[in-house]
């Protein structure tokens, strides 16, 4: 019974929670507690998925498929497979962490914050579970709105401007993406992902190759902006800087990367192959560029944003290697990035809560005062660098080894990015926590981590460790999810290669 409607519940429980938030009084911590409860319920519901996931079974699970609008043929089609399952769980997990991280930071306008925060959870889970292009597009666009509004409200310096920039960056490519969806519908008469995939593989004579190339490009650009892929990253730094931590945690990465995997590789394997050389080059440039710019940052929060750009570019590299290892690594790294990036942002937020600044030059010798916080910083930094036994290592290793064959030079360059990553992270730790204590730190005493903060940080840190040593537990589903993509892209390529030889 629960299995039949689990995805609908997981998607819309946050919306129901949001409606209640609108009605609750702005008193004490009522809103925080309520949102925490809703998030915990949502997380609990998402955990139902891995608990009942049938490994080895092809196709989608926990499916729901109803007519939404008869004509045009829009269906309410939900389902998960190995590709999306852990991303759904991650979203549920991060929503709990997000509430904890915002507990005290968001003092004013709490009602608006938690209302839109919960709406954002619906949009993100919806993106991962929708199997109808129209439905998917709805959630995809919806995910912009709460984010933009919260940035506008809470941006410390240029909130409204940043919100506009963020929105337009994503919305304008999405408009062309919609044209592409409509074009596919005009050709096939369906928005259903599964049927579209079938039509595109079995009935390829229906589509002119050049037209498909444009369609695939429209998809790719819309998703690449959201990842972001260099040179479409213009919104990232400001958005991470201005957005509340709980929103910055989820703004980049998983939505775009998932969409590339699902739709670009799933629907247009041959076209994706054509884009691969360019995308690999852009990914490697992104890795190096992000790392170099991160090295030059004096502002902690901006450093995080460029570190994210660099880390996310690794995932893109893995995806467009088209090897099984690379794809596995890319998806695994997407999960990792969700964790480490969040952990990093939360820590930065906690530091800002205490000292009111992101400027690294103000800090120095903090480890003596905040030893526990320093520990978490170091763990997160090491995970991001890719130290073995932490999660980042698994992902990076798979990506680099999976993409090495065929792209030796690019991957060699990407490896430099790993070294640079270690450099900026360790340097950051050194500047903030070690060395002589700065007068600023001496003059403004602050307490070390408190209970609620531990509740937010310890689970993430534990997960980083567990995902580093027990990766097969996650890989099992991931491998099933991406292996069909790796196969389909090789199959199509070999068949086109044969066709060319003839």
């Amino acid at each position, binding site marked *: 019974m629960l299995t039949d409607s689990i995805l609908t519940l997981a998607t819309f429980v946050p919306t129901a929670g949001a409606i209640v938030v609108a009605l609750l009084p702005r008193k004490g911590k009522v809103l925080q507690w309520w949102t925490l409860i809703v998030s915990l319920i949502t997380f609990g519901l998402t955990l139902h998925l891995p608990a009942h996931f049938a490994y080895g079974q092809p196709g989608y699970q926990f499916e729901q498929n109803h007519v*939404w*609008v*008869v*004509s*045009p043929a829009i269906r309410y089609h939900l389902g998960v497979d190995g590709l999306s399952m852990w991303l759904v769980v991650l979203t549920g997990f991060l929503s709990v962490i997000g509430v904890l991280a915002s507990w005290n930071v968001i003092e004013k*306008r709490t*009602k*608006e914050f938690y209302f839109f925060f919960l709406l954002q959870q619906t949009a993100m889970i919806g993106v991962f579970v929708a199997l109808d292009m*129209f439905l998917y*597009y*709805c*959630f995809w*666009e*919806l995910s*912009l*709105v709460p984010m*933009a*509004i919260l940035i*506008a*409200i809470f941006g410390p310096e240029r*909130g*409204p401007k940043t*919100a*506009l920039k963020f*929105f*337009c960056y994503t*919305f*304008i*490519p*999405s*408009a*062309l993406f*919609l*044209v592409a969806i*409509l*074009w596919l*519908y*005009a050709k096939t008469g369906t928005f259903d992902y599964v049927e579209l995939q079938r039509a595109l593989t079995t009935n390829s004579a229906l589509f002119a190759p050049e037209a498909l190339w444009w369609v695939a490009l429209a998809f790719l650009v819309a998703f690449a902006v959201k990842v972001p892929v260099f040179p479409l990253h213009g919104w990232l730094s400001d958005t991470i800087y201005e957005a509340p931590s709980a929103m910055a945690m989820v703004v980049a990465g998983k939505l775009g990367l998932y969409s590339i995997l699902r739709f670009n590789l799933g629907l247009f394997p041959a076209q994706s192959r054509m884009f691969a050389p360019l995308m690999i080059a852009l990914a490697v440039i992104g890795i190096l560029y992000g790392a170099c710019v991160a090295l030059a940052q004096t502002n902690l929060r901006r450093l995080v944003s460029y570190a994210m750009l660099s880390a996310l570019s690794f995932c893109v590299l893995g995806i467009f290697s088209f090897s099984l290892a690379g794809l596995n690594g890319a998806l695994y790294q997407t999960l990792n990035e969700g964790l480490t990036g969040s952990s990093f942002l939360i820590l930065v937020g906690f530091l800002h809560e205490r000292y009111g600044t992101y400027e690294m030059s103000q800090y120095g010798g903090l480890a003596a005062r905040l030893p526990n916080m320093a520990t978490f910083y170091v763990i997160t930094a090491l995970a991001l660098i890719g130290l073995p036994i932490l999660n980042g290592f698994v992902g990076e290793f798979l990506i680099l080894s999976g993409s090495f064959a065929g792209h030796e030079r690019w991957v060699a360059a990407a490896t430099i990015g790993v070294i640079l990553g270690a450099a900026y992270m360790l340097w950051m730790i050194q500047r903030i926590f070690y060395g002589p204590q700065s007068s600023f730190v001496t003059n403004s005493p602050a307490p070390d981590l408190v209970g609620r903060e531990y509740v937010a940080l310890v689970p993430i840190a534990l997960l980083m460790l567990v995902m580093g040593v027990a990766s097969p537990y996650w890989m099992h589903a991931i491998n099933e999810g991406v292996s069909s993509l790796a196969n389909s892209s090789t199959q199509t390529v070999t068949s086109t290669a044969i066709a060319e030889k003839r």
Partner: protein
Amino acid sequence: MNTSLSILRILPEVILCVTGALIMLVEPFLAPTTSRKSLGWLAVLGVLGALVASLYQYQLAPGTAYFGVFQTDPFSVFFYVLICGIVLASLLIALDSTSDSTSGLGEYFALACFGATGMLLMTSAVELLLVFIGLEISSISTYILAGFRRKSAKGPEAAIKYFLLGSFATAFFLYGIALIFGATGTTAIYDIAAKLGSSQMPLLAVIGLGMILIGLGFKVSAVPFQVWTPDVYEGAPSPVVALMSTAPKAAAFAVLLRILYGALPTLHAHWVPIVWWLAVLSMTVGNLGALRQKNVKRLLAYSSIAHAGYILVAFTALSADGIAAASFYTVSYAAMNVGVFAVVSHVGGFDDRLTLIEDYRGLAWRSPLLGGAMAFFLISLIGIPFTGGFFGKFYVFSAALHSGFIWLAVIGLANSGIAAFYYLRVATAIYSKAPESSPIASVPRATVPLLFALLITVAATLILGIVPGKILGVAKAGAATYPSVNASAPETTAAGR
């Protein structure tokens, strides 16, 4: 002819006429100091009655009345209900933003009823002369309403501008009717289609078509006939703008659909390219013009030009889906635009105290309800999913793509991307911090009529966005009344556009 049935076919018009006349009759008997708002509630009752009568017409067997000049069919009923709904909401908005001392309030409500009568006539008439009469009735009422703030300098200016250009446009429209009569010997819409095939002078009909397009292009403010729009919207009172930016447009679009698909489907090779250009120009000029506006009402005026362009996109599709899409978009545009103007007229008041985007800063903190509603309507105007605006846009461009107009869809959706920018400027202003001593603090609390108006428009926008099936079904039933679309569609995809 069955007279009682005929009466039923024009019952909404009759109710509105009687209500309007009643208001005019009662008004002089009220003491000069008495509030005229009770007359507004009378008008609301009348419009509600017309709305019920329109809904009742849906069960009526389609057919004509009074020597075949009226036609009740799902298409006309669709627009009847829409127009009655718009007028209802705009009356509520007027009740909210006017004060007891606003002068001439009685005439205001009477004129709204008379104008609505004209608009209803336009959508059900299948005789060009009756269309013209309806157009005149509705136009004259709106000319007067536009100049309702006699004391402000911008009011009369808006009215005069609207009146002069509007009369020109109606003259063009009339001339077009005359030329078509010359070519075919009839002014009955469905006869024209039949006689056009054997016409001796098809060129005359084409020129007539051009004239009609100019006349109606003015009414829907399509580029290049849009120049009046920003000034008039700025000068007219906001409740009037809520009405005139939606209801007469809906009626004009209905007429345009009737004429193009009912009377002149065989000339589609001529009018499809023209409409294509009108659509592209309207979308582009409207959106680019809106980018630089500082005044919310002018911004919304340019946005309404752009939205007229989106609706015209659907006209090019030459299919039942296209007609249904145009009808559907008209509804969703009406819902969100009336909603926006409900907030604008409450914030600015009848005499437009606050109209700049800057003035809106902090609205959401002054009143979370008003700010939230305004943001919601703006999001729908952008075309974000789960709102009527998105589904309308989706449906319009889907119809265009189905007929092979890829470039039209690309241009249109790229335009909607640009549009996001200026709508968001307002939305982010609403949610940003109000400056010290901001006038926003003086915005009064929402009144009961306003709450009703917001309830209607928010509910409509959400229903259109989440469960559009029912309304889409009615729009399709309306589209099915045009026999031409199924016969003439396929070969006209205008490849290469």
